[in-house]
């Protein structure tokens, strides 16, 4: 059932095609406060996968009929830029982006004190500028940092990673051919680097044992991402204080 263009092997002598070890991330980059006209903003990258997120609001909810009397209405919009993939994508919403927007909103609703801003709308826009797998994870990581940058009261930050299975091995931070030709793709997000899963999507066949192992790896991966996110936030705000 090999797809056209599949490489013969995804893992050679314990190394992945891009030279990484099985449990090694691509270089991560996290920065907050990158879009001045946004209330809060951030970028997050896993290697070539680059996500940008900006928060607008809380702001008046229109039409008024959609206002929620006791809480803010959290609206998430995930978009993939048409130029972000090797073949031009169709602009605007797709079924895929609709679903991702929904699961991202569900994940974030766990940590935001939505009841602090009744009758308002809180909009989070995520844009994938360059895609090489794990885009929803990068988008969610950027979104949760952007929320913190906007000063939205939150219990903690959400952190997300992908774990895959390629050539029978479990790999952290799926990329490139592993995404197109690997056997399994599991995206998860946890709160504060702990054991509280707020997003989980899995495609591909795994045994119960593998699931157990993948969850452990994903959990530790999320904790690593969490540290990166926190460091980026600290960097931004420590600098402002010392000036």
């Amino acid at each position, binding site marked *: 059932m090999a797809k056209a263009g599949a490489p013969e092997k995804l893992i050679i002598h314990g190394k992945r095609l891009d030279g990484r070890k099985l449990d090694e991330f691509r270089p991560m980059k996290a920065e907050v406060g990158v879009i001045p006209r946004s209330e809060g903003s951030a970028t997050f990258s896993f290697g070539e996968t680059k996500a940008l997120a900006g928060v607008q609001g809380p702001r008046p909810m229109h039409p008024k009929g959609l206002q929620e009397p006791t809480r803010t209405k959290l609206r998430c919009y995930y978009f993939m830029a048409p130029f972000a993939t090797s073949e031009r994508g169709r602009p605007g919403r797709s079924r895929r982006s609709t679903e991702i927007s929904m699961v991202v909103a569900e994940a974030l609703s766990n940590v935001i004190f939505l009841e602090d801003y009744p009758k308002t709308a809180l909009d989070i826009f995520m844009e994938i500028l360059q895609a090489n797998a794990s885009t929803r994870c990068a988008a969610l990581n950027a979104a949760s940092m952007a929320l913190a940058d906007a000063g939205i009261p939150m219990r903690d930050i959400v952190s997300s990673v992908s774990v895959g299975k390629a050539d029978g091995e479990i790999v952290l931070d799926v990329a490139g051919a592993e995404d197109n030709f690997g056997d399994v793709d599991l995206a998860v997000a946890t709160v504060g680097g702990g054991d509280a*899963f707020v997003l989980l999507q899995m495609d591909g066949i*795994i045994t119960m044992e593998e699931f157990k192992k993948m969850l452990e790896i994903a959990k530790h991966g999320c904790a690593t991402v969490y540290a990166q996110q926190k460091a980026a936030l600290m960097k931004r705000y420590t600098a402002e204080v010392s000036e």
Partner: protein
Amino acid sequence: MKNEYMRKLILADTRADGRALDEFREVKVQKGAIKTAEGSAIVTLGNTKVVAGIKMDAATPYPDTPNEGNLVVDAEFVPFANPEFEPGPPTEESVELARVVDRGIRECHAIDTEKLVIVPKELVWSVHIDIHTINDDGNLQDAAALAAMAALQDCKIPKYDVEKKQVVKVETFVVSTGKPLPLKETPVEVTVFKIGGKLFVDAADEEEDALDARITIATTEDGNLCAMQKGGNGILTSEELLRAAELAVVKGKELRAALG
């Protein structure tokens, strides 16, 4: 108020209709309900009812799978099924439901798509599954996935005229070859719901309104997991996720048996 009551019941290991937490409502599968479809099925879970119909059509293959047939799954939340459903374009919920059904079938290669080639690299069968809700009393996801699988089992490949490049029809009816769709696996989906520290299956509508989180898990005949999707606004711990997976395998066997 009602939500609080539903939560209290679940936390006390009971349910409004007297079921155990790991008990499904009565499952009924009726295959071949729609004469105009190549395959169809009506599935009921208690008062929840969905119908799945399959139409097959010749199409160009996708560039990355030139020698495989296509699978397309759509879901329509018909407004008569639930007063909260509104007419109009697909909602987030209906898109998610269709995509999760799609992944359950696709990821374990339930359909032998390599056997759906009409002219290599040019023309393949496209299997289009449409799921319509008839009545929503909760757990549409599991009902929809089961109906899709039953419809696939019921599906017969139409006759195709390569010269005329069209499906052979008599009057308005498609002529069937009588050949079943080539199937390799029977995935079923089980959604595990969480309220407080309790996990349960087959939530009724009023239980769904009170839940903290849910996870849909597709399983294969040999007890492996082939697609998962968490939903709802609450958290699940890794211990709960593993418990949910075990439950999905056990309950999945029951649902698979209902396919006959």
